[in-house]
């Protein structure tokens, strides 16, 4: 399963410059909007929060509303948020019919030609007439997004069949300080092509959720809520519970042991589907080296269920008696609950030593 960790490591490197990165390829339901906003909010300045929330929900709901036309059995819809420099990029991908594609292309071309005042006029006109298109509120939503982001909407269509197109859209919202120096005014948002590549990786490997950013109690709750709603106990008893438990323990490991860099406990968290269940992976910078930890994991990987149960009870009792740090209990417990080996990988980059932990939770 080391290749699963390697994949997340590649994505982690893609997001090196991201202050926050979140990619969602799970169930598309309005219920998730709130959690996605809560996660993105931590990195956004107060005055941009309202606009950010509006753009996220408008963009996410576009996918929910237009549904997903399945292509060769794989779901293509994806939603992503990336904070890079002064921008927050909001990316969405979904498949659309030929007629919707024609409508969107025309509408976006028209909107992208207009300046602020013209957009305002078009919005007023659309509100008044209420008949801007036969495709529901899509037109109005697009004008609103262009107005709020104050930038051209990036778009791309890719032909899948004669009747089906992949539709990529990216909103670039300025969320940081706009300092009027040369560098700032010159900085441009990333191209939609970059996110198209990320989308391909995410759909290909069935990554349900990937988050890179600061880890704290505030980020844990929305992530756990997303995990819970995407991993019901449909096919095997307790698989949702095991994913929830593994997510809690691994994220708390980051909060507890992760190295703080620039005032943040930066880490990565991902969940993807596998042939036999799900693969959960986390990574973070560490203080010192990881030799002891790697040895400890290698030891518990060799043990069978009975040995693990005994070790867990012994460690639990000792830590309850001695009031010491409960180091190790969580990992022993995860190992015996999932009964698959725990993967560990280490990397070194300019910021320090990075440790990744991965585990597969399988249907029994």
């Amino acid at each position, binding site marked *: 399963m080391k290749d699963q960790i390697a994949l997340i490591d590649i994505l982690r490197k893609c997001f090196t410059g991201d202050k926050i990165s979140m990619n969602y390829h799970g169930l598309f339901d309005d219920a998730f909007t709130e959690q996605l906003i809560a996660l993105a909010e931590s990195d956004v300045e107060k005055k941009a929060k309202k606009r950010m929330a509006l753009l996220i929900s408008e963009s996410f709901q576009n996918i929910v509303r237009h549904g997903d036309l399945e292509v060769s059995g794989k779901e293509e819809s994806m939603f992503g948020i990336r904070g890079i420099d002064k921008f927050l990029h909001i990316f969405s991908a979904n498949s659309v019919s030929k007629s919707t594609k024609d409508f969107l292309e025309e509408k976006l071309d028209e909107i992208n030609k207009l300046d602020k005042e013209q957009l305002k006029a078009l919005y007023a006109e659309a509100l008044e007439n209420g008949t801007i298109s036969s495709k529901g509120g899509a037109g109005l939503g697009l004008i609103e997004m262009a107005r709020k982001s104050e930038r051209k909407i990036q778009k791309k269509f890719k032909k899948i069949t004669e009747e089906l197109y992949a539709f990529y859209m990216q909103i670039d919202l300025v969320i940081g300080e706009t300092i009027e120096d040369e560098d700032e005014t010159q900085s441009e948002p990333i191209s939609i092509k970059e996110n198209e590549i990320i989308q391909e990786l995410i759909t290909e490997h069935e990554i349900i959720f990937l988050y890179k950013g600061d880890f704290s*109690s505030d980020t844990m*709750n929305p992530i756990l809520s997303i995990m819970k709603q995407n991993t019901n106990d449909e096919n095997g*008893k307790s698989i949702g*519970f*095991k994913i929830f438990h593994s997510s*809690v323990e691994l994220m708390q490991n980051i909060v507890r042991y992760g190295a703080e860099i620039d005032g943040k406990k930066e880490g990565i968290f991902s969940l993807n589907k596998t042939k036999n269940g799900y693969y959960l992976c986390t990574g973070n910078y560490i203080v010192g080296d990881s030799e002891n930890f790697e040895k400890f994991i290698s030891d518990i990987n060799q043990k069978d269920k009975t040995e693990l149960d005994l070790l867990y009870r012994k460690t639990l009792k000792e830590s309850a*008696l001695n009031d010491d740090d409960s180091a190790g209990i969580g990992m022993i*417990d995860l190992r015996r*609950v999932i009964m698959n080996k725990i993967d560990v990988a280490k990397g070194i980059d300019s910021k320090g030593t990075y440790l990744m932990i991965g585990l597969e939770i399988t249907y029994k």
Partner: protein
Amino acid sequence: MENKIISETDFGPEITMDISGKISIAGKSMMEDASLFYGPCLSWVEDYIQNKKEGLQIEIDLNYFNSSSAKQLMKLLMKIDDAEIGGNVVWIYPTENDVLLERGQELEIMLDLPFKYSPK
């Protein structure tokens, strides 16, 4: 001695402590550092053991608890286990969740306190 209630939070359960000898822990327990949350409950139990003669009944009705909480539950139950007054545990678990039932059975193995199981 007084009755005491620790309110439920996003990460912590509700704990009610009644001087008639009943403690109830209900909800979910997933704090990163559970010792802070359970601290007042442990002190209350110590007080109880010193001042009361009746055994304690602990009703544990948790839908989830993490490893940090497991340690605190163990501490709490060990205190009662070691005390002369003794007590018993009612372990309430969701019917469909085998893991939570096993968690109770495991604690029972590690302690002398009698356990009663109640699916919900």
